[in-house]
Structures are given as structure tokens and as C-alpha cells.
């Protein structure tokens, strides 16, 4: 390795100068070509989703398949909207998203705060429990929780999907704990000496500082609820209560290979997620790099 005491030979100095001049001419074009090729592969499914949604059935089932529709039509969107209550599904999904994001934002920062900034006995064991539940496959608790809701007569209602976030989610508690740990203790101590109540310290000092972390948590909860499949599949039986995920699933179950309307519906389902991503890109990236969450 090169250390401070490495003699500077002329060859070395030349090499440093050539390195500092940056990438060689022409290599930048190669870089772009590689990146464009990769991006084309990742974008292909989006392109197919869009073009299929704009095709008539005989264009969809043409051999050999063609990439672009000869005469783009919005017919598939009409069929999709007519053959399933997409509006209803949308309302249900948005309702669950709002409820879950609210629940998460009420519960997780509170727990994370008490785990970080309030000294109390049993705090560390509790932290350990929270962390170890992150390791536990959700399948382990799925059955007893289902039985519990079944005993309460709540299977088929929104309750099993609404309540859990209000009770906290291990991943988010962990993420917020990491963030709160960075808030100086002196700040909290000073407020305590001034006679502020714990809740006031939490609400007026710590929470405002944690805004970026809260935004990250909110966006992840949004995405989880928006795209969730397994919980709605387990608990929602009445088509009136279907979310978009389950609605699409039911549509496929009934109509099978009706690819045009299916792709149109998929497209409408995906666009809001993409829009949120465009608006809040930096929170996605920071959230991922802090936790490696999906």
C-alpha cells in the first residue's frame, strides 16, 4: 500500500496526474451504454404493462408478439373500471393506508422514545424482545392472531388490518430508536430540569427533531399497506371490503387471461406508488440506507 513515506518517483507522479484528470475520453460513452442497457432491461416490464394496456385483444394475442400497439386504445381501462369496482377498492386501500400510517406514527415514536430517552427498569430487556421479534417469521404468530380475531368475530372486517400498527411495529421502533439515540441527552435533561412533562418533551422537542425519520417511517408504512397482499387475503372476504391487491387477485381468478384490462388495472394500481416515490425519493433512499428495509 502507499503510505506517506512512499517515495514519489516520476512514474508515480504521472500516474497520479493521469488519475486526477478523471476518466479517459470515450469511457464515459461506454458507461452510458452499460447503464442504458441495464435500465432498458429493468424498464421493459413497465413498457409492456403500458403497451399491453393500450392494445386491443387481437393485437395482444398476435404471433409473433409486437412491442407497440398499432392503434392505441383506452378501451381496456373502461373494461377494467366496469368489470371491477376499482373506486371501491381504492377507497378501501386509502382508508387502510391512512389508518395504518396514523397508527404507526402514534405508537412507534412513543415506544422508541421511552426506549431511548426515559431511564426505566426493564428497558433493555424490552428492547431485546422488540429486536428478537424482528427475527421471528410472521408465520409463527399468524395462526394465534387469526384465532384471536376469529374469536372476536372480526374476521372479514377491517379491524385485523387496522389495529396492529397502533400496537407498534418492531422494524419502525428500531429505526426510530436509532434516530432518537442521536438526539443529545442534554436537550432532554434541560427540559426536564425546567419542569417539562415527559410527554411535553416528547411532543415539543424530540418529535420535531425527528421529522425526517418520521417521514421515512410514514412512507414505508404507506408502501407496505398499499402493496400488502397476505393480510388482506387472510382477513377480507367480502368483495365490498377488498383492497386493490385483493381486487386484482380476484379479477385474475375470474377472468384469467384477460391481459389488456388486467394490465390497465395494474397500471392504475402502480402509478400512485410511483408518484409517491417521485415526490419523496430522498426519504426512500435514507430509509433504506439506515435500515435496509424493503
Amino acid at each position, binding site marked *: *500500500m*502507499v503510505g506517506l513515506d512512499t517515495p514519489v518517483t516520476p512514474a*508515480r507522479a504521472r*500516474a497520479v496526474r493521469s*488519475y486526477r484528470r478523471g476518466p479517459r475520453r470515450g469511457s464515459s460513452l461506454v*458507461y*452510458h451504454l452499460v*447503464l442504458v442497457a*441495464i435500465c432498458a432491461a*429493468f*424498464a*421493459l*416490464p*413497465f413498457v*409492456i*404493462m403500458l403497451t*399491453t394496456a393500450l392494445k386491443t385483444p387481437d393485437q395482444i394475442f398476435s*404471433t409473433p*408478439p409486437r*412491442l407497440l400497439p398499432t392503434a392505441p386504445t383506452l378501451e381496456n381501462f373502461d373494461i377494467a373500471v366496469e368489470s371491477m369496482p376499482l373506486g371501491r377498492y381504492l377507497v378501501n386501500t386509502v382508508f387502510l393506508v391512512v389508518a395504518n400510517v396514523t397508527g404507526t406514527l402514534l405508537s412507534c415514536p412513543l415506544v422508541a422514545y421511552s426506549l431511548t430517552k426515559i431511564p426505566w427498569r426493564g428497558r433493555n430487556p424490552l428492547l431485546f*424482545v422488540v429486536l428478537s*421479534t424482528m427475527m421471528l*417469521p*410472521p*408465520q*409463527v*404468530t*399468524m*395462526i*394465534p*392472531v*387469526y*384465532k384471536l380475531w376469529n374469536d372476536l368475530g372480526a374476521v372479514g372486517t377491517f379491524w385485523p388490518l387496522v389495529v396492529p400498527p397502533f*400496537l*407498534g411495529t418492531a422494524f419502525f421502533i428500531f429505526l426510530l430508536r436509532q434516530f432518537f439515540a442521536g438526539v443529545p441527552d442534554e436537550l432532554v435533561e434541560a427540559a426536564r430540569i425546567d419542569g417539562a412533562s415527559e410527554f411535553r418533551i416528547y411532543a415539543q422537542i424530540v418529535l420535531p427533531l425527528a421529522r425526517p425519520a418520521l417521514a421515512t417511517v410514514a412512507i414505508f408504512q404507506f408502501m407496505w399497506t*398499499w*402493496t400488502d*397482499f*397476505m393480510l388482506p387475503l387472510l382477513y377480507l372476504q367480502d368483495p365490498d371490503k377488498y383492497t386493490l*391487491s385483493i381486487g*386484482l*387477485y380476484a379479477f*385474475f*381468478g375470474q377472468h*384469467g387471461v384477460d*391481459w389488456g384490462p*388486467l*394490465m390497465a388495472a*395494474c397500471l392504475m*394500481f*402502480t402509478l400512485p*406508488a*410511483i408518484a409517491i*416515490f417521485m415526490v419523496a*425519493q430522498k426519504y*426512500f*433512499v435514507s430509509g*433504506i*440506507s439506515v435500515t*435496509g428495509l424493503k
Partner: protein
Amino acid sequence: MFTLGPIAASAYYSFTDFNIFQPPTWVGLENYTALFGDDRFRTALWNTAYLTVLGVPLGLLLGLLTAMALNFPVRGQPIYRAVLYLPAIVPVVTATYVWRWLLNAQYGMINRLLELLHLPQPDWIGDPAWTKPAVLLISFWGIGTTTIIYLAALKEVPAHLYEAAEVDGANAWQRFRHVTWPLITPVTLFQLIVGIINSLQVFTQPYLLAQQRLNQASGGPENSLLTYSLYLFQNAFVHLKMGYAAAMAWILFLITVVLTALVLATSKRWVHYGSR
């Protein structure tokens, strides 16, 4: 608290015969011993092992390669990054259906491309040998999260280390092997563990790929898509063998813990923690 109760209940159910309508009856270790003689359980284990052993390392490799491409010193990086990451936020139901269409043997675009390249065109969804590669393709499409994590790690590598290595005449591979790789091993370890945990639980993609009209929770052609979680779901919510399913869940937990411990044990040999 909402978790500890169910954990205890789940452990108890795993020693019982339980169908949710009648109270559980104690059967001791019967569920666990029955699993050893269950052919479909073995199929599910095999399918999950296939997806994990192939999918996790290939996924990490693909994530690393795409991250290195995104780390090229060129303009327009945010746009490339967004395109690569977008599939990761597509709802899994959408992603699976789009790929079912792309992989359609007759009318799908993937087989059309393979035809143009004069490559064989498998029946992805119908041929038991190709259904699992189809699942892997879907998960590789959503690799963006891994890419972003690797990209963040690559950006942390101090530029002066590369300069020093280049001055010493290290070629690109040597720079990667001796500068980049040691510094990203901690991230790789983390992603490997998360990847294994997620892969052992994979459910939705195989469930939706195997979905037939009005046939819920099918295992796909010759049960080639019957993953561990899918079989657990079938047992619990189709056959209502809840005790059996609870036993499966605990074995899954055991497998997860053992694999994680194994990875951590070997990590001392290949993970470098810097003095930073």
C-alpha cells in the same frame, strides 16, 4: 406484548390437533414427527432451498453489479438510479401478473426475445422445471433495494484508496478485490442475512404464479411452486390443520436461526470491520 402472547399460543398449538372450530387437543410431538414423513413437506423444503441457494447469492451479485454501474462517474446518475429502483416499489401483485404476461409461453415478450436470439423458449409457468426460475426473475426485477444499499456502501469507500491502488499499478479487478470488496463485506453480511430470512418466507410470488382460475393456493405444476410458506398457508387456512401449520412455523424459525448463526459463524473469515 401483542407478540409474546401469540408466540406462546403458537408454541402450544404446535403440540395439538387444532382446526380453529374445536378446542385444541394435545397430541405431543405428533405434528413434528408427521412432518418427517410428509412428501409435500419435503417438496416445500426443496423448493424453498432452491430459491434461497440460487436466489440470494445471485440477487446480491446482481445488486452489487448494478450498484457499481450506478457508481460510474457520469451525469444523469439520479435518473438511472430511479429507473433501477422503481420496480422495487411496484406492488407485488402487479409485478407478478406483469411477469406472468411477459413470460407467457406463446404471446409473451420474453420468449419472443429468446426466439430472436435463437435460444430455447421454455414454458415458464407450465413446466415444473421453469417455474422457480420465473420466481427468481420476478425477485431480481425488484432488486433495487439491494442496489441502493450497495451504492451507499460504495460511495463510502474513500477515493484516496483507489488512487493509491491505481498508482501502485493495481488493475481494475485487483482494485475491486483488495479495496472495494473488503470495505463492503459488512454490508454484504447484513444483506445476506436479510436475504435468507426473506427468501425462506417467500409466499406471494409463487402463490400468484400458481394461481389458476377459481383454484386457491395451488402448488403450481407438480407442486414446483409449493414453497414453505405456501404449504404452511395451505395447511392452516385451506385444510385447517392449524396445529400442523404451527409446528411448521416453529421449524421455519429454527431453520432461520440455524442458518443465521452459520452465516455469522463463517463471517469472521470473510467480513472485514475497518478501524474506522
